[in-house]
């Protein structure tokens, strides 16, 4: 079912505007992630869709029906909470069948359905245990099972993996992806973890301060960020920002032409370059020279943090340029290098408001 949010505004009693006029269309069967830092309004947006918060302005439509004033239980949606929110005094079976029993389904039929759902998640052996006796991963599966058993028209997931350790998180991420591929139910997923967002989503909506800054597929979000905030928030290690100038549609940094931006006008700009788009060579071969201050090993790549030499005021935010180097390339702290960029991969932003100028 489609979900559409129209000019949604949420103000809290203390005057905080958590959501500032959000417009969002989510297609039938789409997996959309709301991504952003803590306090950006992503969870509030999800809670508005769930009906757990009431908007001050705007409307919410699910499957074409205006559900803005409809009770959460009557929206036919299911939510997976960050804390799982399992009923602690009930067994897994009772947790899973609670919604069906409330809806009037006979116990035998509800139990049978729970059995089928539990088998699909590999938790049929846990049905008679209570949540306190389950591990974090098992609780997560039960929470998913409780959501799935109702055959909802839309899943809402609020940072469902953030309480799991890294290995389990990766495993459950794959599991969620598999389930979505199989059942193709519209899903709105909230996370502050950009990897999770990029891996899982059909589209990602990046939020900050109650507003959506960009909605696009993961590749576009990564490669063509709409603002410096999006560019900075998505990607690990973070994107490099350099100060540059735009003259007659040509962006330059340290006196070298880097990329033609479509926007006209002469103005100072910020250039965004991902670590993997930096090429290191011998000194004198690049735009500027620098010294490797330290390196961080990430597995397949090593990130070299380079301190530029003789180009003061080049870096817009940090004191080092981060460059991704293949693990097999010899590089160590203290090495002198020449730094060059893959020109066609550079993003150009207005230095004032941070909006993207390149296309």
């Amino acid at each position, binding site marked *: 079912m489609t979900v559409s949010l129209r000019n949604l505004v949420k103000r809290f009693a203390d005057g905080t505007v958590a959501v500032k006029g959000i417009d969002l269309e989510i297609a039938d069967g789409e997996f959309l992630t709301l991504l952003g830092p803590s306090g950006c309004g992503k969870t509030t947006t999800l809670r508005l869709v*769930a*009906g*757990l918060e009431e908007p001050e302005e705007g409307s919410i439509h699910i499957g074409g029906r205006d559900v803005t004033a409809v*009770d*959460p*239980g*009557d929206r036919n*949606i*299911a*939510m997976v*909470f*960050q*804390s799982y*929110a*399992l*009923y*602690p*005094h009930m067994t897994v079976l009772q947790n899973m069948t*609670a*919604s069906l029993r*409330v*809806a009037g389904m006979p116990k035998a039929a509800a139990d049978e359905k729970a059995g089928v759902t539990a088998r699909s998640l590999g938790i049929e052996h846990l049905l008679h245990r209570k949540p306190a006796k389950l591990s974090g991963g098992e609780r997560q599966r039960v929470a998913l099972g*409780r959501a799935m058993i*109702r055959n909802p028209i839309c899943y809402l997931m609020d940072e469902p993996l953030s309480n799991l350790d890294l290995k389990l998180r990766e495993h459950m991420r794959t599991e969620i992806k598999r389930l979505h591929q199989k059942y193709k139910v519209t899903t709105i997923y909230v996370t502050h973890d950009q990897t999770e967002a990029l891996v899982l989503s059909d589209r990602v909506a990046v939020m900050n301060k109650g507003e959506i800054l960009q909605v696009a597929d993961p590749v576009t979000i990564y490669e063509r960020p709409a603002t410096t905030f999006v560019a900075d928030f998505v990607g690990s290690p973070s994107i490099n920002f350099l100060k540059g100038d735009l003259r007659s549609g040509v962006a330059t940094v340290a006196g070298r032409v880097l990329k033609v931006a479509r926007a006209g006008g002469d103005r100072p700009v910020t250039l965004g370059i991902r670590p993997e788009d930096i090429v290191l060579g011998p000194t004198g071969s690049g735009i500027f020279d620098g010294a490797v201050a330290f390196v961080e090993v990430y597995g397949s790549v090593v990130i070299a943090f380079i301190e530029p030499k003789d180009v003061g005021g080049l870096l817009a935010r940090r004191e080092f340029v981060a460059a991704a180097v293949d693990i097999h390339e010899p590089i160590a702290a203290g090495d002198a290098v020449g730094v060059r960029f893959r020109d066609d991969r550079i993003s150009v932003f207005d230095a004032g408001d941070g909006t993207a100028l390149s296309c």
Partner: protein
Amino acid sequence: MKRRSINSRAMNVLAFAVVIVWLAPVAWVMLTSIKPTMLINSAEPTFFFFTPTTEHYIEVFTRFRFGDVIVNSLITVGVSTLIVMILAFPAAYAVSRMGLMSGDFWALTVLSLRFMPGVVVVLPYFKMANSVGLLDTHLALIVVYVAFGLPFAVWILRGFLLDLPREVEEAGRLDGFGWLRILFFLVLPMAAPGIAVTAIFTFVFSWNEYLFALFLTLQKVTTIPVALQKTIDVYNVLWGSLSAGAAIQLLPMIAVVFLLQKHIARGLALGAVK
């Protein structure tokens, strides 16, 4: 490591000293209640080597009608505690979750009713009870105990409910639960330790209450604290009977605390009184 072990030993010694100070009077009362009157009145106190007697217990049940008195206490305190809990639980939920009179200002306003000295209102209560013919009835005491117990119970339960995870109730709303179902099928089981602790406190306060019981009862519905006082007259203090009566008053409390100590400890750790 060594310092920590010395510290913990010092703490143990201190805790032991505190326990002795607290328990010594209780132990004294218990011993006196089974000591022959001659030994109680002797100038040399005897602690261990005597033949225990049940004479004082027999006396409180025969002369001071403790059979009736205990039943009176159980009825007034039991019923009032039950009513307080039935009213306090939904009230505390409304306060803690539904925005009704929420916030610390209201909570303290309600609680301040509890701070009011009973002596301020005991005479008006007496006049009212007398004028409607409730004097020396269980109902009079029950009404007063409910009036005094309810604000405290709401306040303490509110603390417990605020500590419960809100998401569980929200999950219930999404599962189609109505408010009553959320209240009784989700919140009630989760809040059980808090409810137990609140009920115990409410029960204890009323069980030990003296002033209202003294004014609002005459003969028929006298409760234990008032009956205890009858062992003291102008000429004499019947220490044996007084101690036996006090032991009878204490025993249910000690039994309840022992039986529910796990709940009480958890409840105290969870709630607003931590």
